[in-house]
């Protein structure tokens, strides 16, 4: 078995016993990348030299006993909308194709301090706008389970890299499901933390009130380890919450007796793929057999989630993406006559179609005369959606749903139908609107051999219960141990 096939906690144990060193892990990961990357295209940028240097330094410090980071020597792939100092951060966009960040994201800083080795930046939908990683300026990423299928998105590169052993761990961002949905599509574990749990400083903003950075891992244990490193208040992010961070690995206990799990009836309706429904219901049975108490609940405003999301997210995006004007950095259209033309051409040529569509939607929703009817109304409904969850969590400890309505779809299948594409996130969007944490774990496979994801949701800052349920589930199932054949 190659080192790249192991989990972070397995590798950390081996490191602890001095059986292996970081250099070997990184080499193993890179040899895997050499093998499969041409077919998958998980990465926008690979930084092998820096990674090898980092690994050697960490090995050296470990040998001298100077260092004991929580992720010492473990490879981590970072989504390309998170800034690493002096590295390219493109957001998979032409407009930032050559942007080199002069500063480092708080999350990257925390990973670095704990000894993580950055192996590269992963592909994504441009500016995290999409559900299939087809909206990347640098080309699509393919699902490792079937190369004709999408890996989900927008963090498709991170999910693919973890699923295909091109990395051990990965970081993504989730604005409407962008961690959980690709995790489901690729058969790995992905967690979207509570809004405010992880600093957004250095995450290139898409929709500020919804964006949250989170971990990808091969199992729940790895996700918990990564959560321990990236969580916590950051004085550079006013929206990060100043709360003590629990040790998430303490939630890794195989015990869910009496845990109340809610099954929202609004999530099991027409449009839900039968194989997905079957797999999720089976997972509920497993949880029940382990002592959990399933309970049907109602989240009455669920049906408005997508509409609310596609008003709020584009509105915020229309302002967040205004800074890409070619004046200070990034792509600038050559030979324009005046300022207005420079703006128009730079942005017209620099952004892809989906990004432009959302900027226009958002600009419209915020315009004089429309603000009340769109943005403000959406905010009001958002409050109602949040209240649905507050009410639900009075009765249950966690909510169980499918992560996505279908398994991964075919490449190209929905590119010309934005609305169908948007519906891929129908089950994940509400968690972002409500600011609550959610996790996706593999819970089965379709007839075509594509993974199916189980989503667990909890109340704010209750990531622990998600990890506990997920861990218990994984101790009793082996979906997460299956690997794509590449």
């Amino acid at each position, binding site marked *: 078995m190659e080192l790249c096939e192991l989990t972070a906690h397995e590798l950390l144990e081996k490191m602890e016993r001095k059986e292996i060193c970081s250099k070997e892990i990184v080499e193993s990961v890179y040899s895997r990348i050499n093998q499969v990357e041409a077919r998958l295209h998980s990465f926008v940028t690979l930084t092998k030299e820096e990674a090898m240097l980092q690994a050697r330094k960490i090995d050296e410090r470990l040998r001298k006993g100077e260092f004991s980071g929580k992720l010492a020597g473990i490879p981590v792939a970072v989504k390309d*909308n*998170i*800034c690493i100092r002096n590295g390219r*951060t493109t*957001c998979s966009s032409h407009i*930032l194709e050559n*942007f080199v*960040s*002069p*500063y480092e*994201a708080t999350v990257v800083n925390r990973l670095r301090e704990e000894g993580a080795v950055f192996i590269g930046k992963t592909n994504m939908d441009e500016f995290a706008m999409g559900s299939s990683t087809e909206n990347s300026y640098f080309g699509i990423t393919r699902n490792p389970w079937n190369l004709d299928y999408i890996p989900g998105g927008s963090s498709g590169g991170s999910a693919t890299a973890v699923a295909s052993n091109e990395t051990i761990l990965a970081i993504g961002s989730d604005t409407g499901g962008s961690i959980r949905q690709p995790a489901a599509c690729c058969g790995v574990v992905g967690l979207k933390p509570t809004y405010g749990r992880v600093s*957004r*400083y*250095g*995450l*290139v*903003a898409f*929709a*500020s*009130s919804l964006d949250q950075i989170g971990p990808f891992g091969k199992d729940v244990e790895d996700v918990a380890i990564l959560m321990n490193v990236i969580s916590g208040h950051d*004085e*550079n*992010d*006013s*929206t990060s919450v100043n709360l003590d961070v629990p040790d998430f690995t303490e939630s890794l206990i195989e015990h869910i007796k009496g845990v109340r799990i809610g099954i929202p009836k609004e999530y099991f309706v027409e449009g839900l793929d039968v194989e997905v429904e079957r797999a999720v219901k089976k997972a509920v049975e497993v949880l029940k057999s382990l002592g959990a108490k399933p309970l049907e609940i109602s989240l009455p405003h669920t049906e408005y989630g997508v509409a609310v999301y596609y008003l709020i997210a584009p*509105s*915020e995006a*229309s*302002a967040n993406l*205004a*800074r*890409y*004007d070619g*004046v*200070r*950095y990034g792509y600038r259209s050559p030979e324009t006559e005046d*300022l207005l033309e420079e*703006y128009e051409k730079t942005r017209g040529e620099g952004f892809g179609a989906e990004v432009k569509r959302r900027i226009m939607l958002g*600009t419209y929703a*915020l*315009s*004089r005369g429309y*603000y009340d009817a769109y*943005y403000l109304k959406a905010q009001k409904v958002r409050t109602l959606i949040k209240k649905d969850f507050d009410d639900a969590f009075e009765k249950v400890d966690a909510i169980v749903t499918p992560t996505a309505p279908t398994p991964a779809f075919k490449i190209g299948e929905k590119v010309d139908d934005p609305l169908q594409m948007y519906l891929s996130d129908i089950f994940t969007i509400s968690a972002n609107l409500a600011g609550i944490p959610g996790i996706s774990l593999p819970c089965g496979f379709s007839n075509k051999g594509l993974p199916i994801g189980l989503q667990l949701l909890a109340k704010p800052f209750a990531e622990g219960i998600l990890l506990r349920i997920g861990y218990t589930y994984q101790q009793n199932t082996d979906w997460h141990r299956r690997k794509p054949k590449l």
Partner: protein
Amino acid sequence: MYLSPFFETIIGLEVHVQLRTNSKLFCGCSTEFGAAPNTHTCPVCTGMPGVLPVVNRTAVEYAIKSAITLNCEVASRSIFARKNYFYPDLPKNYQISQYEEPLAENGYLEIGTNSGRKRIGITRINLEEDAGKLLHSVGSREIDGSLVDFNRCGVPLLEIVSAPDIKSPEEAYTYLTALKSILKYLEVSDCDMEKGSLRCDANVSVRISGEKKLGVKTEVKNMNSFKAIQKALQYEVKRQVKALKDGERIIQETRLWDEKSERTDPMRSKEEAHDYRYFPEPDLVPLIVDEEWMEKIRKTIPELPDERRERFIREYGLSEYDAGVLTAEKALAEYFEQVVKLYRNPKVVTNWVMVELLGRLNAANKIVEESPVSPEQLAGLLGLIEKGTISGKIAKAVFEEMFSTGKSPQAIVTEKKLVQITDEKEIGKIVEDVLKENLDAVKEYRKGKEKALSHLVGQVMRKTQGRANPELVNKILKEKLASLI
């Protein structure tokens, strides 16, 4: 100024002042004025991808302090908002400001007018970030394209919007002077229009007296001094009155004041066709101001111009007018009090500060803070007069010398041998010489012409370069003249 009595002027002012915090509103960069371009910048204030703003607590405190002083209701919860527009001096292409829920509302500022004290309403006060600066030339050299300097970008601004309570350009001038005075007393802003730390736009309309409805207003911009504001408003009021008299309609528009031609001209309409698409800033949490914080800030509010004026009248026996002049500017009031501390005759100090010091400062176009004569030096000079070391007349010459050289009065008096002659014998000798040399005047005096005496005094003073003690000269002259009879 000419204004038909049938028309009434309505003015509202929007003032922006830079708060004199050490660092910017949303990042740690310095706010220092005049640094080399783009040296006070960081990823946050240059709008790099992925950065987030963090509110500067001191800026909020300065804003609250100003709001309390301007009698506003400070909101216990206010929110920041994004104001969206594209311009190269605005790195994010939106400005973080406040819109629907500002920091403070419903205050007022009391000003003195010809018809007594009057309250000008303050509609709202809010915090926002300043933009950078575009350069279209370097010195006198035209450049190909434009350069942008982000040093100013993110400097905290306080926007203070008055109600349309101002009834004339003169009142606008008084309001601005009073506002500046207060903000300088609070030490929250330099309020220096030349450096751009105070900027002012005006909304102007006129209506027929007695009319209830407000007339159509224009917004006047681009004034760079209080005088310019007054002039621009005078022009604009006249223009609107004339237009109405000629049966024309006023168009709601933005007009720019042109200092050279002394007129306002409409801004190109394309430049003002903005829809700012305000919405709450999702990167910042609501600004919560609790009573405890308010109380803490309230305690830092110093004595303000009005209180100080009253105290000067009470404590130093100054006239209303003198107290008003001396307290209008914090620095001047403090200068005055420092002199008084060292030379305990407020009346004399008042005279010297108001006549000599202010006269010289104005002539030299300097502010009190730049005075070459320190309060200690002025007190020293007054001490020399009191001790009789120099005469009051000589003292004025010494003051002039102090002002131009910055030297101490003692040094100047010694250097120039200006010590007063009070030795009666020495004066007696000089008087005798003068009498011998001016026999005609002596004769005249004997004939009873008192005027001759002052001629003789003048001669003595001339011989001593004004150093002889005038009372002694008078006394000795009279004695000698009497003995000659």
